[in-house]
């Protein structure tokens, strides 16, 4: 009995090995341009990774249908990083060793920081990523990377400026997770609040993976702040937090940054998420006009797409734009050349993805807008105008 099953077990292993070796064959090299990506298709960030991947994929299909970039088709090579730095580095190394890869999409702050010295050393690949980390928004330290939107600190600034415009001297509570991601913009947010004469009455740090918010609700119930801003969550505790806060008689408004504002997840949360406000640089307005937003709608009939999808799409769009400009200038696809054209993006029309023409400042596009979720319509509705963060203003 044991021997038989052991044999079966070995055969299983053999089978897996055969499948593996049969793979990995490089496809015929056409004059394609390969764009690589490590996306977290599994793990806690899979919800964003899958959307982000599909956003990129759909954009490249859209470009390829229109004949590609300067007649060259785009080949998008994506692998699952599982949101782990070493996996992502391995993926980067493999894809770039198998193909010339002028552009690569990173999956996380950790990875983008880890790979940065290598990017700078190589000078052959530029990177757009899923990270909005303030640290990466630094053209000196990260000369070959861009952020497809405002960094987390700027996202906070957008929210705080909106608050300041709504109510002078409003009280604010910051709730963030105890991760690198979660702590990123807190210091900047406090400074901005001080400048705007807002009153940060409490900062709450939660353990990653912690699901019970009742203690935290209690913590701020008696203060009943005007606004509560979440950062560093993949939505999970937010609807519950709101529901419990409502039960507790609080009248605060709840807000969040990019990944904490996800349409699909909020649709699932339903009524509990009603009224939640989030910052985004992307145009979720159903009536928005532009080539790109219309292409998105065409590719997603009957589907609601999230931030992450727009972020994937935007990264792809920026990549294509950079490639187009570099090739049009008849220059080699080196990092220096590509980033030169990237940094030359001033008042660039994003085809409706951003509501305003955008300019690259440092490595990011510091534009944003506050949306409010309507449970009845199952969508995010604009709550503010486009706000552009400029230094010192």
């Amino acid at each position, binding site marked *: 009995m044991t021997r038989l099953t052991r044999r079966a077990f070995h055969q299983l292993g053999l089978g897996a090995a055969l499948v593996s070796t049969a793979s990995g064959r490089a496809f015929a090299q056409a004059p394609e341009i390969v764009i690589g990506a490590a996306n977290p298709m*599994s*793990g*806690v*960030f*899979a*919800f964003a990774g*899958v959307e982000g991947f599909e956003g990129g994929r759909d954009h490249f299909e859209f470009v390829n249908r229109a004949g590609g970039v300067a007649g060259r088709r785009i080949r998008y090579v994506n692998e699952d990083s599982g949101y782990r730095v070493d996996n992502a580095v391995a993926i980067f190394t493999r894809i770039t060793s198998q193909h010339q890869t002028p552009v690569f999409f990173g999956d996380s702050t950790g990875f983008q920081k880890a790979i940065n010295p290598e990017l700078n050393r190589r000078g052959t690949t530029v990177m757009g990523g899923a990270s909005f980390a303030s640290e990466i928004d630094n053209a000196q330290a990260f000369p070959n990377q861009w952020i497809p939107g405002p960094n987390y600190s700027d996202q906070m600034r957008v929210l705080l400026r909106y608050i300041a415009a709504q109510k002078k001297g409003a009280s604010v509570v910051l709730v963030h997770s*105890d991760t690198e991601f979660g702590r990123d913009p807190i210091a900047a947010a406090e400074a901005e609040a001080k400048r705007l004469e807002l009153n940060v009455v409490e900062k*709450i*740090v*939660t*353990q*990653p*993976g*912690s*699901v*019970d*918010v*009742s*203690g*935290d*609700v*209690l*913590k701020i*119930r*008696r203060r009943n702040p005007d606004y509560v801003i979440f950062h560093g969550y*993949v*939505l*999970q*505790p937010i*609807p*519950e937090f709101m*529901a*419990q806060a409502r*039960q*507790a*008689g609080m009248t605060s408004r709840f807000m969040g940054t990019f990944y904490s504002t996800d349409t*699909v*997840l909020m649709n*699932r*949360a*339903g009524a*509990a998420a009603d009224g939640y406000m989030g910052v985004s640089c992307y145009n979720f307005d159903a009536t928005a006009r532009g080539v790109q937003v219309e292409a998105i709608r065409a590719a997603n009939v009957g589907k609601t797409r999230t931030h992450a999808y727009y972020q994937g799409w935007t990264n792809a769009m920026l990549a294509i734009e950079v490639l187009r400009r570099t090739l049009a200038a008849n220059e080699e696809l080196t990092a220096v050349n590509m980033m030169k054209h990237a940094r030359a993006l001033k008042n660039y029309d994003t085809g409706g993805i951003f509501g305003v023409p955008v300019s690259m400042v440092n490595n990011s596009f510091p534009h944003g807008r506050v949306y409010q979720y309507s449970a009845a319509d199952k969508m995010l509705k604009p709550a503010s105008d486009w706000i552009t963060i400029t230094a010192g203003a």
Partner: protein
Amino acid sequence: MAVEFIDIVETSLAGIGTGSLMALTGVAFVIIYKATKVINLAIGEMLMIGAFVFYGFSAGLALPIWASVPLTLVVAALIGGLIERTMIRPLLKDNPVSVFMVTIGLTSVLIGVVELVWSAEPRRLPEFLPSQPVLLGDAFIPSKTAYSFVIAAAAMAVLITVFAFWRGGIALRATATDRAAASSVGIDVPGVFSFSWMLAAVVAALAGILVGSVGGISSAMGLFGLSVFVVVIVGGLDSILGALIAGLFIGWLEAMVGRFMGGEFKLLATFTILLVVLVVRPYGLFGTHEIERL
């Protein structure tokens, strides 16, 4: 900032509420440990799969609560039995570290299964607990905390009563004391093993439904098991009473630390307690001290 008395009371009550869920999951852990001497690192994931099965019935198939809960518990029992039969029993005679490692592998398998079927996205369970907050004097208790505490307490009361008066409880305790001797008096020991895993899976699933209803569900919710681990070590691996008391205590401690020191200190506090207990009383506060002889 002055600490108000009412603040302490409210935080304590909320902590005890969470603690009751840790205690319930801890009881599931202890049932397995008592009967099979297996340290089940996958207890958090068993809780998770219970919560997702409930999600499948209540949200996926849109069944009413009164049908979803029993169905979930039945499915959980089957899963528990399946795990015991296929992964645990073949190794029971081997050294305990092997079985422990199997439960680590099981962790990975269960997370994979959940992500395969439901994806890794966090989800919310349908609301089924009353949403009126509970007021104890001036102290405010969030409704879900209050009701899940009541349900967890009731479940534990039922379990304790059953173990005290039902003959099967004696069989379980006899098996825990001495497998060979239990076998020699006619107790179906493999049956007891299966039963204990099934029962533990049911208890864990119930805890999962409650934990999920409070904080939503995701493939990462097995992390809850980490705190449960601390609970059972502090209480004593083989003591149901220990799991109860330590569960409430750890829940309370986490709430107090979170409230007055900040959330980043929660794990530090619990694991420091864990370390202290391990060094001072390696068998836990209520666990059985096994005398080692030559």
